[in-house]
C-alpha cells in the first residue's frame, strides 16, 4: 500500500495528491508517468508525474475526475492509501540543448506540463508558457507557472479569465512575430495538440507532444497504448509506454489516436455513473 500524505483540491474536478513511494520519487524525471490501482480489483491507470520530493519520498500526481477509477481516487483522503503505485515509466522529456521553449498546456494537461516547464527553467532556458482552460473555475497552477516562466499567457475558452480563445491564438501570434522557439512542447487534449502541431507546422518549429493513451501494464507488455507514426512515408507502430509518452508531433496519427481513445467510451460512462451512485449512497 502507498500512503496518501497530502491532498489538495485544485478545482471542482482536479485533485492533487502526494503519495509516498520513495523508490519512484528518487528516480522520476519530468515527462514520466506512474501506474496506479486505487484498490484491490481496481483497474490500472497511468498518470503523469506532476512533481517529486525525493527527500520526503513522495510523488505528486494531479488528476481530473473523468471516470470510475478517478472518482474512487477522489474519495481517498490523506492518511489513507492506494493499493498499487508503480513507476517511473516511460522516457523523460528531452530538454538538453534547448534554450528557448514554448510550453502549451491544456486543462489538466497543465499539471504534467508544469514539471517540464520547471525543468527548462532550472537549466536556464527561456520559458514561454501558454496554458488554456474552459473557464476561470477550471484554472489551475497559475502561480506555479508564473514562477518558472519568463512569459505566461492564460487563455480561457469563454473569456472568463485571461485572454479569450484557445491556446493556438497566442502561439500563432508569437510565431508570426518571429519569436524564435527551439521547441514547442504541448500537453493536453488530443484535439488541442493536433491544432498546436498544425499552427506550428508553417514555421517549422519542432513540436513534442505528450500522448496519454489507454494503457494496462505500462511496461511494454500489452501493446494497448500503441501509436501510429507517419515516418518518411511509412506507418510505424510505437508503444507510448516504453517509446514515449513524448513523440514528434509532426509524425503522430492524431485521428487514429482519438478514435482509439474512445474505444471503451460506453463502458467508461456506465462505470462512472455506477461509481458516482455508490458514493452518493454511502
Amino acid at each position, binding site marked *: 500500500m502507498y500512503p496518501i500524505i497530502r491532498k489538495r483540491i485544485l478545482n471542482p474536478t482536479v485533485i492533487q495528491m502526494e503519495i509516498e513511494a520513495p523508490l519512484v520519487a528518487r528516480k522520476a524525471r519530468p515527462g514520466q508517468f506512474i501506474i496506479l490501482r486505487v484498490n484491490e480489483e481496481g483497474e490500472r491507470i497511468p498518470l503523469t508525474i506532476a512533481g517529486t520530493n525525493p527527500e520526503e519520498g513522495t510523488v505528486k500526481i494531479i488528476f481530473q475526475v473523468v471516470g*470510475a477509477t478517478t472518482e474512487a481516487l477522489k474519495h481517498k483522503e490523506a492518511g489513507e492509501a492506494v493499493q498499487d503505485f*508503480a513507476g517511473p515509466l516511460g522516457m523523460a522529456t528531452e530538454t538538453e540543448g534547448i534554450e528557448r521553449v514554448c510550453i502549451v498546456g491544456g486543462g489538466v494537461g497543465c499539471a504534467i506540463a508544469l514539471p517540464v516547464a520547471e525543468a527548462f527553467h532550472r537549466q536556464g532556458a527561456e520559458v514561454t508558457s501558454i496554458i488554456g482552460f474552459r473557464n476561470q473555475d477550471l484554472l489551475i497552477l497559475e502561480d506555479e507557472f508564473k514562477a518558472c516562466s519568463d512569459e505566461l499567457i492564460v487563455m480561457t475558452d469563454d473569456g472568463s479569465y485571461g485572454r479569450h480563445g484557445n491556446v493556438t491564438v497566442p502561439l500563432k501570434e508569437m510565431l508570426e512575430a518571429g519569436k524564435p522557439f527551439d521547441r514547442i512542447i504541448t500537453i493536453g487534449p488530443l484535439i488541442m495538440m493536433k491544432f498546436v502541431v498544425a499552427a506550428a507546422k508553417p514555421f517549422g518549429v519542432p513540436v513534442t507532444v505528450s500522448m496519454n493513451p489507454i494503457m494496462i501494464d505500462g511496461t511494454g507488455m*500489452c501493446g494497448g497504448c*500503441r501509436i501510429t507514426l507517419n515516418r518518411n512515408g511509412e506507418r510505424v507502430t510505437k*508503444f507510448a509506454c516504453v517509446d514515449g509518452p513524448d513523440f514528434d508531433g509532426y509524425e503522430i496519427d492524431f485521428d487514429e489516436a482519438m478514435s482509439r481513445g474512445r474505444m471503451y467510451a460506453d463502458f467508461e460512462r456506465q462505470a462512472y455513473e455506477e461509481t458516482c451512485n455508490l458514493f452518493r449512497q454511502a
Partner: protein
Amino acid sequence: MAVNPKKQAMPTQAPEVRAHNFQEVALGYTETMALEEASRCLNCKNRPCVAGCPVNIQIPDFISRIKQKDYEGAYQVIQQSSSLPAVCGRVCPQETQCEAQCTLLQRAKMEPVGIGRLERFVADWHSEHGQETDQVPPDNGHRVAVVGAGPSGLTCAGDLAKKGYRVTIYEALHTAGGVLVYGIPEFRLPKRIVAREVEGLKKLGVQMETNVIIGKTLTVDELFEMGFEAVFIGSGAGLPNFMNIPGEGLKGVYSANEYLTRSNLMKAYQEHPNTPIMKGGRVAVVGGGNVAMDAARTALRLGADKVYIIYRRSMEELPARREEVEHAEEEGIDFRLLCNPVRILGWENPENPRDPQNGCVRAIECVRMELGEPDASGRRRPVEIPGSDFTLEVDTVVMAIGTSPNPLIKKTTEGLEVNRRGGIIVTEDGLSSRAHVYAGGDAVTGAATVISAMGAGKTAAGAIDRELSGRAG
C-alpha cells in the same frame, strides 16, 4: 497383466457447458484413475521420460509411489526437481516432452503413460491433504535478486531458497506469477493454484516485491549496490508483435497479451469488472500457438457468437499443445488453416463522422496459402495463392503471433549483450555477458513454454549456487 493400450481419459466439463464458463476444463483424475494409469508405467530401466523433462523430474520414481498409494511421497519426488508441480501438470506440452519418450510408444498402438495427468493428480492431492512445513532453510548468508515473478524467476528463487539463499523477487505488475496470471486463462490454470505456489515460496523465506520495474524503478547495478551478489533476469517476453498490415490501429484490434491480460489479470471476465474488454460478436484470433488457443477460447467464454483461428500453415504445423487444440475444436472454434490476414477493415459512416462505430473493426481480409519448401525452422513455408482473397466479418481481432523480449533492462544495464531479436545472450549455465548476472526464460529465448522457462531458472539457480557457495557468506 496386459498393459491397457489407452491412457485413462481425463474427465472434463462437457464442451457445450464449459464454452460458457471460466471454470477449469480438465477436472483431474480420481484416485482410482490415477492408480489405474500409474499401473501402466513399466518402471523401465533406461527411464527415457526423465531425459525428456526440461527439469528432469524422476518420473518413474513418483509413479512408483503412486502405485504404493504414497501420494505425499510422490509429491516429494516431484518437488525435488520442480517448484511448480500443480502448474506443470496442467500446462506442459507433455506430448512433445516426457510422454514422447515413453517406452510404451515402442509397442504397436500404445499410448504413452499419462505423466502430466499423474503429476497434476499428485500436486492436487498434496494441496488438499499434504502438510506444509513452515521451516525456512537456514540462512547461508548470500543474497540473490530475481527479476520477474514468472515461471523462470519463481523456479530460480525456489531452488535457491531451498539451499538457504535469501532471495528477493522484483515483479513489475501488482501480482506475482507472470504469464501464469496475466496470460494463461483461469479455465486452463486456476489462479488460486498459482497463488498457492507463490505462497509456498514465501514460506521458504522468499521476499516478494511487487510494483518494482527493474530497468526503471531500480537498475541491475543498483541491485548489486544494495548487496545482492547475483541477479537472475526472468523478465519475460515483452513487446507483442503485430503483422504491420493496414487496420491494426482500429478499435477492436488487440494483441493477445492485452486481450488475455484484460481478461485474466484484470478480471474483465467477471460480472462487474473494473477493466473493460470487448465482449460478444465475432472474433478472429491470428496465430496457432497456445496463446492463440487461449485467446480464442477466452473470446468464446466472454460470449462471442463465432470465433475463428486464422493460421497460415496447416493443422500439422500448428504449434499449440495438442490437448488445447482438441478442446478448442470441441468447443466450436472455427479453424481457418492455410490462411493469412492481409488487412483489417473498419466501419466508416460517411453520413455521420461522430458515429461511435466509426473506426471499429468490421472485417478481416485474408489470403489462402499453400505449403511450399521447408524453411529454416524445418516447417514447410506457407506461400500465398494469388487472387484467393476472402473476407470474414468480425468485430474483434486478436493478434497472437508472438512477442519480442522487453527492452527495459537492456536499456539501463551496461554490458548486457542481447542478440538480433533482443534476447539476452547467455551461456549454457544461464550466465549473461555481465558478471554475476544470469538470465533465462522468454527474456532469453523469446516466447517459449512455461517448462522451458522453468528449466532455465533451475539451471541458473544451480550455476548461481556454484558461484556463490564457494564465497564466504
